[in-house]
């Protein structure tokens, strides 16, 4: 009896060791795959930055360098003097800022109403709004374009660039999800104290919704900053372009200026990269709010 038990234990020790070494091998393999994929993901960006600091002039052919052999900001000077890049950056900042503020305000108001207030038609209106998220942008694009450009005559204005994005259904949904989790007792207490509904929203709801609002603001700002198609359609003059649209037109105008193009790409991406690293926590946690739960 005792002998059998010993044999059994020995076998399981061997099995355990085998399993342990299998685990180590697996661990090494997984790190190799991950590192490879991270490298391929990061290298284009690394290369963009390195090349933007090389003065390669207008030569169509040159050898890519892994490590910069010289340092120059000539491409940046060229990009800024040849184009209205400063104006483009200001435009992008203004447009993204206004759209973010308007989304914060209107999506919070609507999200609060849908989550915490009771009124006839509430659920129906909410579901109709939500269902429209399925409609692809292309299906509505042409009439919106004709309306904004030909009917309202708003081509080449900030209003035209911002109008369709002032509040998105996705953001209303996010705020509704977030505000459903807030305790209703606070609202009831404020109501008994005689606060008006708007005062409740401003003094009670908004202060405790800050984490949700932060996520909404960050994602709205980034996606507006990166938006290309709509501003591209409704702007004509260089002075009205956003940085993304300006960069695209620069690409078609200066086909041989790779250096300037990389400098412009860095300029367009840098604000978002800085934002990402300084608010990393919000970015990485924010994605899971409202995305899967539905």
């Amino acid at each position, binding site marked *: 009896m005792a002998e059998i038990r010993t044999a059994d234990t020995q076998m399981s020790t061997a099995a355990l060791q085998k399993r342990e070494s299998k685990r180590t091998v697996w661990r090494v393999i997984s790190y190799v795959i991950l590192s490879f994929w991270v490298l391929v993901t990061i290298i284009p960006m690394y290369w963009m930055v390195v090349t933007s600091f090389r003065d390669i002039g207008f030569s169509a052919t040159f050898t890519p360098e892994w490590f910069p052999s010289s340092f120059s900001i000539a491409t940046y000077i060229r990009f800024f003097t040849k184009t209205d890049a400063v104006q483009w950056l200001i435009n992008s900042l203004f447009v993204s800022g206004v759209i973010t503020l308007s989304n914060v305000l209107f999506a919070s108001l609507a999200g609060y109403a849908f989550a915490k207030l009771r009124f006839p038609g509430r659920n129906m209106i909410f579901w109709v709004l939500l269902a429209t998220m399925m409609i692809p942008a292309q299906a509505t694009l042409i009439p919106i374009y004709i309306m904004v450009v030909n009917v309202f005559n708003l081509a080449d204005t900030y209003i035209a660039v911002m109008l369709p994005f002032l509040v998105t259904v996705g953001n209303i949904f996010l705020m509704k999800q977030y505000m459903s989790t807030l305790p209703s007792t606070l609202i009831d207490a404020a109501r008994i104290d005689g606060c008006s509904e708007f005062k409740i929203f401003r003094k009670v709801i908004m202060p405790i919704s800050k984490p949700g609002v932060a996520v909404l603001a960050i994602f709205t700002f980034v996606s507006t900053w990166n938006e290309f198609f709509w501003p591209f359609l409704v702007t004509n003059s260089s002075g009205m372009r956003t940085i993304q649209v300006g960069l695209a037109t620069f690409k078609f105008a200066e086909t041989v200026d790779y250096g300037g193009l990389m400098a412009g790409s860095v300029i367009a991406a840098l604000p978002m*990269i800085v934002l990402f690293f300084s608010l990393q926590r919000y970015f990485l946690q924010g994605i899971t709010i409202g995305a899967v739960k539905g």
Partner: protein
Amino acid sequence: MDKWKQFFRDYGWCYLFIAVPVILFLVFTLYPVLAALVMSFQKYHVLNPKWIGFDNYRMMFQDEVFWKAMWNTFVFTVGTVPLNLFITLGLAILIFPRSTRTQTFFKAAFYLPTVMSGVTLALVWFWIYDPTESGLLNMFLGLFGIENVMWLGKSNSSLFSIMFMTYFINHGAGIILYLAALGGIPKSLYEAADIDHASEWSKFKNITWPLLKPTTLYLLVTSIILSFQVFMSIYLMTQGGPNFATTTIAYLIYEHAFVYYKFGLAAAESFVLGFIIILASIAQFKFMSSDVEY
């Protein structure tokens, strides 16, 4: 009259809170959908639209380029969505067992391209695909003695090149969602499986995969919708060429509407695209959600 006053006093705030989104919905979603439908039966001119029945649809279905664009869109979707989902899931599973700090590092690294604009990424990859040895890809392959390839300039490689690029840029958000979902799977399930000496594969097949289904469904639906609408990388990198090899439906709609001003035809095409997207989304929900408990 008093009844109305009472109603207004009770619910006025609520409707005020949702007023802006509802108005925007009516003007920028409901009206455009209906307008696009009407427009698709017209030879459209802003001042003088002419009713032409099904002519736009007839013209569309007889157009060889339309079918080519349908095929390209189909190839792009089939060639990117499943493989990207597989890569995203694979990377998430490899990252999951690591320490929190390692997890955060990989999350941030894979998320970085997501905060950069599509314009920036398209421009960098446009350069990677440069047909001379100035391009990173040709330089790299040159190390192995492979001759320069015109990646974007040849009809048999251009669509694949645009697909290939997506394998390295779109995983950030998906990885984070999968990691959150993996964290939500109870450990006890795996412990129970260990007692039964279940293999790693059978644990994945019977525990991980079924419990990740809601996340998979969400990612599948959103990425299929996006891939049906692929436009910007094509506009910036190939302009639909060469010889329509990269003309997708979204690009064709853009060209017909905003280059040739055939608004009626473009509206008909966008309606077909919208219809396909909605059908595909419903089909996936039906197909995938039957056994998702949530």
